[in-house]
């Protein structure tokens, strides 16, 4: 459980609103940065798989409020990503995140790539045929770039909002058991 739900909600809302108001004006190759994919994995890293799934669901729903696509589509993709990263963290696969500098960057890049890819696939599965006409390569490259760039600050912010060294402590507990 996070030490302060309010702090976590404020951090998540700030990132979502920054995405939906500021980032949308920053066009590169005709697409804008999408760093909101970092939130669910960051919650998963801080709080584990359950927190990743629930956090991803709520972050996704708040993102979906701004989109014309079916309500719940981003939520589904983010819940799955948050859960996966949280599960990997619980099993110790990401234990060296504080020692290896590129690991958060790699997680951010993967979150961006898998997140936008999953969103695209789920969108098509749920009847969003227009997704196929989107500049997919540009979106992927752009998302990976921005998620890599902002992975460290977003992870730190979410960990601060969660209120502890959760990933490290949980890994230690996992090894002890």
């Amino acid at each position: 459980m996070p030490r302060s739900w309010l702090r976590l909600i404020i951090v998540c809302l700030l990132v979502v609103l920054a995405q939906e108001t500021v980032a949308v004006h920053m066009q590169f190759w005709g697409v804008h940065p999408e760093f909101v994919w970092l939130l669910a994995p960051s919650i998963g890293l801080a709080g584990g798989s359950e927190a990743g799934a629930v956090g991803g669901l709520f972050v996704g729903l708040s993102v979906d409020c701004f989109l014309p696509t079916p309500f719940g589509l981003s939520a589904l993709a983010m819940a799955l990503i948050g859960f996966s990263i949280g599960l990997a963290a619980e099993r110790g696969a990401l234990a060296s995140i504080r020692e290896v500098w590129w690991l958060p960057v790699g997680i951010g890049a993967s979150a961006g790539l898998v997140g936008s890819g999953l969103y695209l696939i789920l969108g098509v599965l749920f009847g969003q045929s227009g997704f196929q006409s989107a500049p997919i390569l540009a979106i992927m490259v752009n998302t990976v770039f921005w998620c890599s760039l902002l992975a460290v600050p977003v992870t730190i912010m979410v960990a601060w909002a969660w209120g502890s060294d959760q990933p490290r402590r949980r890994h230690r507990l996992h090894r002890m058991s």
Partner: protein
Amino acid sequence: MATRQARRRFTVLAIAVAISVILIVTQSSLGGAVKSVGSTVLSPFAFVINGVTRPIGNFLSGALNYSSATNENAKLRAQVARLRMSQAEAAYERRQVANVLGLQNIPFLNQLPTHTAQTTGISQSNFSATITISKGSSSGIAAGMAVVGAGGYVGQVVSTSSRSSLVRLVTDGQTRIGVTFGTTPVMGMLKGNGHGSPLAVAYVPFNSLVHIGETVYTNGLSGSTFPAGIPVGHVITARSLATAAQMQIVIAPDANLGNLTYVNVVLWEPLK
């Protein structure tokens, strides 16, 4: 112990997935209602942040009074565009009066009430082309209504909260509109091809009379989502390939989608 923990973990995931899927498949009822509430809560925050960040962006990209100048410019452009659209509609009306379709009592845009709204946000997703406007259900705006401005058809309202609405632009890949060509009775289905890409018209029979530069209007056929006579775009290329049963027609939107500071929502809903 570990099994129970793992079971709990996957139960939480299953619940999260189930909630998402239920909301996705109940767009017209539960999903839409939750989205409307969420938008109502979040849109004031987004409006405030937009209000703070937009002038900074304007300042960085131009001179000291850039913001007021661009606003004034945008209003004038919108006014010119409205006049241009009225002109195009008049031409359409003349043709329709002489046409059999004119007898079918199809409503024309200039007889319909509109509501002017300000654009408060642009495409929030790279996978769709949208704008957010400053008026919502409290102003009588409903999902499905057409949005016009800056020279022609802009898009369609897809969801509303009490004080804002989300509009899917004509270029969005999900756009499908029944259209007719300016001087001929040829009809087709206009499709969006994504943000920044020209539009395409499908289902136009091989060797139909379609001219370059011709204006394309909404056809307003029975069951259509839009009233007839809204100018959508003009023909850039029209080709009949020997191997295809349909013509390949490319359309440029008439509306200046890069300048949508103000738009008009057409307060028209199809008869149910």
